[in-house]
């Protein structure tokens, strides 16, 4: 019995330590984001490359997923609204569900799977192959040169791709509104405009930035935690990705709480 309690205690301490380490790293990187000295020609080059890899290269896949998933979901949702006679809530459902909840959630999942795991592996490999030591020997701060552009890119990409997903969803919404409810473009635009609340948009923007920040920061931290052995790379990616998905759920829950307060 005492052994079980001891194990629970150890697990709690480990999780708390990991949580506070992540938070302190997050605070450190936030200060770097607002520090003018963090920006030089090298970080700008990395940022441009990262935006290309994360936001541009993913576009074909992202558009296919958003059109397929968006059309399917919007079709089902709008048909259900009609069947249940909830036509008067159409605008609120489109903005409240599709734009502020579904878009950032699908976007963050896609980016975490694609870029989060890639960055975790990249940083762990750089640690194992001593490339991070190489940077240190030239007084190049990895926080500034490697991590900062990736984190900023995560935030920018999430906001932009989430916006793109919303546009696809609203376009599908328009097509289905016309087919199911016989609604014209003007009526549809008015419906959406009347359903937009500034507070929701602020929460959506902050949520996207927070998602983008943490789905890159956590893999970086876990990549840095790899040892100098090759076998530590998959372990670091495994732990990193678990923490990323925990963070996504946590941020989603917090944003919902903020929305309903």
């Amino acid at each position, binding site marked *: 019995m005492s052994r079980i309690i001891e194990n629970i205690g150890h697990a709690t301490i480990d999780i708390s330590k990991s949580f506070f380490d992540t938070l302190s790293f997050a605070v450190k990187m936030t200060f770097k984001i607002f520090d003018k000295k963090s920006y030089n*020609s090298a970080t700008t080059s990395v940022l441009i490359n990262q935006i290309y890899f994360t936001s541009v290269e993913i576009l074909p896949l992202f558009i296919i997923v958003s059109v397929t998933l968006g059309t399917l979901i919007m079709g089902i949702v709008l048909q259900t609204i009609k069947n249940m006679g909830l036509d008067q809530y159409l605008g609120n459902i489109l903005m409240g569900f599709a734009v502020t909840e579904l878009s950032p959630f699908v976007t963050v999942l896609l980016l975490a799977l694609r870029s989060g795991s890639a960055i975790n592996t990249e940083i762990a490999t750089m640690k194992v*192959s*001593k*490339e991070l030591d*190489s940077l240190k*020997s030239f007084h190049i701060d990895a926080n500034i040169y490697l991590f900062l552009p990736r984190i900023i890119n995560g935030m920018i990409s999430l906001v932009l791709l989430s916006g793109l997903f919303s546009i696809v969803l609203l376009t599908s919404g328009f097509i289905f509104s016309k087919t199911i409810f016989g609604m014209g473009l003007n009526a549809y635009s008015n419906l959406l405009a009347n359903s937009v609340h500034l507070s929701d948009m602020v929460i959506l923007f902050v949520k996207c930035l927070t998602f983008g920040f943490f789905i890159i920061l956590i893999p970086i931290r876990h990549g840095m935690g790899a040892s100098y052995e090759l076998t530590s790379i998959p372990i670091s990616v495994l732990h990193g990705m678990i923490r990323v998905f925990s963070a996504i759920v946590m941020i989603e829950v917090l944003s919902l709480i903020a929305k309903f307060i």
Partner: protein
Amino acid sequence: MSSDTPLLSNLNVWENMALIKQYQQNFSKKDAKNLAIQYLRQLNLESIANTRNPDLKEEERFCGLLLRAAMVNDAVILIYKPFKLLPAMKDFTFIHNILINMDTLYTQCYIFDYTWNKNRYRMNDAEEYCV
């Protein structure tokens, strides 16, 4: 420079060299690239400018590391166990020739190695330099 300070594998040779100037002196990418190419030209190695670390031959990698170290302002280059980077080299001739060809790019150069390698440097008085 040593085997513990490799070139970054996600950058090619000129990008590895240019990074030092871009980060430390905020050179624009274009200026840093021109300087890196100019340094490579000095050793007749422009052909490896766009090659990444895993695709380099041992000698090319060694030169890439040396030139990257020379990108630092008033460079003082310290080479630690050079024959670990060039295991097939029988003696110091190659390293010596490279250092002479690029002598305008650095201010001083020191080499640290084990005394049992003294024959490869053709030194009989290696003990005098033991640290």
